[in-house]
């Protein structure tokens, strides 16, 4: 759909709509525009665990940035654990998922022959007269929370759920590990590559311009803790995941690093309300979470940046990423490839009026 074609098709309606410059959000189809929540209150994050990981928190615990939630075993191994009966010495039975701290205390007294020492690990299931368990390997990584919050649930071998303080900007997908840092904006078409220097170490960069996997990998090597982008192509994501996996496999684990993608796999400008939010948060400590994908922050001081009434963004088609003001619904219209879709007139910032399928629009709340 070219800008020229749709502008021509819309000429008559648009002129009429332009005359009614006041937006009427509640009427004539505005309610049919899909809503995208800009800021989520009370975000809840999930930190996935695998069998063998040792949990260090309990439900109700208050956690702050840097609190270690669990120890993650890189290569857990299957081992025989304590005997099914009498291992704790308290009469309290062991259950699957319990953490066994090991070291052979299951022998009941000095006159008995000492049982073979057992390693520490997570009990999986009974096998004969003993427990089978996932014992720790040679490498342990820590699972930290990047933001303040309260532990809601803890499930051995599954994960830890933490209700975070602050607000969240939810994205489309994320890669990497939860992390935190000072938010810094990188505006302009030059994008990430042109803006990298050692002064960015420890920062979470919101990139509004060009980005690719090489730039992101270089940013991580320079100590950047995270990157927020509007779109990231599948090839770049795959390259990044491969590089991340190689880094994580090294003896000394690097600092956690994450990429948050706000829109999808196709490059678009950062949505204006999101860019305004990033500007308001510039220099503030924020956290990047991957499950769900989100940027967590404390509410900025003063007025919240919020889009003006009737502000819409075009998500798809030739005008993807362009924003403007809702004028009015136009009913069914014919678009390219002979498809008939519910349409609306939208006034762009340069004054041009375009006709767009309502399903291609989004509005922010």
């Amino acid at each position, binding site marked *: *759909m070219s800008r020229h074609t749709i502008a021509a098709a819309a000429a008559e309606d648009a002129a009429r709509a332009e005359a009614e410059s006041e937006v009427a959000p509640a009427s004539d*189809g505005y*309610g*049919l*525009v*899909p*809503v995208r929540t800009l800021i989520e209150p009370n975000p809840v994050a*999930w930190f*996935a665990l*695998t*069998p*063998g990981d040792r949990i260090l928190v309990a439900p109700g615990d208050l956690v702050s940035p840097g609190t270690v939630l669990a120890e993650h075993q890189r290569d*857990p*191994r*299957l081992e025989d654990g304590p005997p099914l009966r009498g291992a704790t010495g308290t009469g309290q039975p062991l*259950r*699957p*998922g319990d953490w066994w701290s090991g070291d052979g205390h299951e022998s009941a007294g000095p006159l008995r022959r000492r049982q073979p020492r057992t390693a520490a690990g997570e*009990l*999986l*299931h*009974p*096998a004969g007269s003993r427990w*089978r368990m*996932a014992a720790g390997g040679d490498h342990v990584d820590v699972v930290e929370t990047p933001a303040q919050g309260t532990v809601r649930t803890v*499930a*051995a*071998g*599954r*994960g830890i759920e933490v209700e975070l303080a602050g607000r969240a900007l939810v994205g*489309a*997908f994320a890669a990497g590990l939860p992390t935190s840092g000072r938010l810094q904006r990188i505006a302009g078409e030059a994008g990430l590559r042109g803006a990298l220097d050692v002064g960015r170490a420890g920062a979470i960069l919101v990139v509004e311009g060009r980005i690719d996997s090489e730039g992101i990998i270089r940013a991580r090597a320079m100590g950047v803790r995270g990157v927020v982008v509007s779109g990231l*192509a*599948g*090839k770049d994501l795959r390259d990044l995941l491969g590089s991340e996996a190689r880094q994580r496999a090294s003896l000394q684990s690097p600092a956690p690093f994450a990429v948050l993608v706000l829109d*999808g*796999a*196709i490059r678009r400008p950062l949505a204006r309300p999101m860019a305004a939010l990033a500007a308001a948060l510039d220099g503030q400590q924020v956290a990047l979470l991957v499950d769900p994908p989100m940027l967590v922050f404390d509410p900025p001081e003063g007025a919240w940046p919020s889009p003006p009434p009737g502000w819409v963004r075009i*998500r*798809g*088609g*030739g005008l*993807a990423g362009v924003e403007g003001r809702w004028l009015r619904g136009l*009913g069914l219209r*014919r*678009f*390219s*490839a*002979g*498809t008939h*879709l*519910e349409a609306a007139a939208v006034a762009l910032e340069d004054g041009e009026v375009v006709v767009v*399928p*309502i*399903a*291609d629009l989004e509005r922010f709340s």
Partner: protein
Amino acid sequence: MTSDHRATFALDLGAATTSAALIAVVDGRRRLLASTSMPAGIDPDDLLGHLLARLGTADPDLAALLGIGPTGGPIALAGAIATWPRLVARSSPPPELVVLATTAREQHAVARLAGLAGWRTAGGSLEVDGAIELTRLGLSRTCAAIAVAAREPGSREETARLTELTALAGGIVERAPGVPMLLVGGAARALGGLPVGENGEGPLLAPGPDAGDPPGEPLRRLLLRLDPASKAARRAMVATTIDLAIALDRRIELVEIGFDGGLRAVVGPGGVEALPAFLPEAALVPTDLDEIVIDEVLAWSTLALDRHRMGDRLRELRLWPWVDAHGEGALLRLAAARAALERLVRATPELSALPAPDVIVVAGGAWSAAPGPAIALALADLVRRPGASQLAFDHARLLGPLGTIEDADARLALVGELADDLLTPLGTVIMPQGMRPGRSAGQLVVRSSAGETELELAAGDLRLVDLPPGQLAMAELHFRDPVQLGTRVRQVRIEVAGGLGGLLIDTRDIPLRLPERAEPRRALLHSWQAAFWAGLDG
């Protein structure tokens, strides 16, 4: 819903789009008056308000008859939205079944059957993955049920594996109470020491994937019953299609492609002829978008995209499925829908082996942006059996909501009344098999009230005869040599019905063979599609 309601809304709350329709009594009979669909997530009341406003604009008299005319104003509209009864069908994401098995063979056999019963599957085997990985899978946050599968142990090693697997599964169940467990085949015999869940229910015992006739059917039936989404829209569609088969006294094949899966069923007035297949793998864009899926879509695409760009477009389609339904987006959507239909047909050879149905009904949000004739072509490309079938489209997405009516008699009565409204006729396809390549393989004469059309038939061809919706015609086919057309014939007369796509005479191969190389394949697909898609290049 009862017959004394003057008007009823039907809502299909899909995973990608919400569809709304208005059914009301007109001239003493319930009719479909209007329908529309918009992205999922918007308030259904807003959509219903929009639907009524459109009806009021298009036919003020009819709106006035229903009490929502201009004199009533917004209050009358709000009152109608608040008080008129609704039939609501909801789609839900397919639940995940984790298959834990002693061997990879058992795992894949159970996963295949579960995939046909509406389950998304994950899993592993002791043979390949080990106990820690199996425990991780069983404890997964997305796991809705666990199947523990093993063959009847034939050796000491197999017995030991089975013992370990049941102990492992017992450990998982103890940590995740409430997750139902199914013991399949040899595992069912090792029930002994397995703990009973907190709700007091023990594990379900199931026959192995090779048991029954046809093999695997008893296990598939059990998995269908176990599906927590058993009241979802896709199940309701089967009930409506059976009613439709009774009302029309026809054999009907239903193929549906949606955001979270696909459905294929063949039904007659007596009920389903074989177990319906509910296949998450046949989603428009499957959750696990891999290179295979990308290649499948590329194989049906008329767009010249490389694999990376196609992958990105499909990821976008998965994330925002309602966006970009025009221009190239419409072509991409149709290619993805064809690839999904191909997966559905490939997974259900037992349904393909049944005789050609009288009517093939296509349904699902995946087709909503494509023109009717292009949908007819997509069906002819992929659902290929020798014979003749009418093609129809569930354009208002009523099959799901109607199927939610629990009173079977009331549902049948309503489906009977709406039978002429709820499907858009796409046309008729005649598909002979076994024609010999040559200059002329026979002749076709189509006689209708509009006149007579004659065509020469040649093998490997796709011919279109204009036959508008509602028109009946008699097609006489004379072949040089006997061909397969349900039965082996040389001359045959078939009554055909018109539709948006008209009458398709499809003498291409069964199954369809396309050029291996991308360029000529794209050109061929485009040449076929261009004949069925008005305004394709505009």
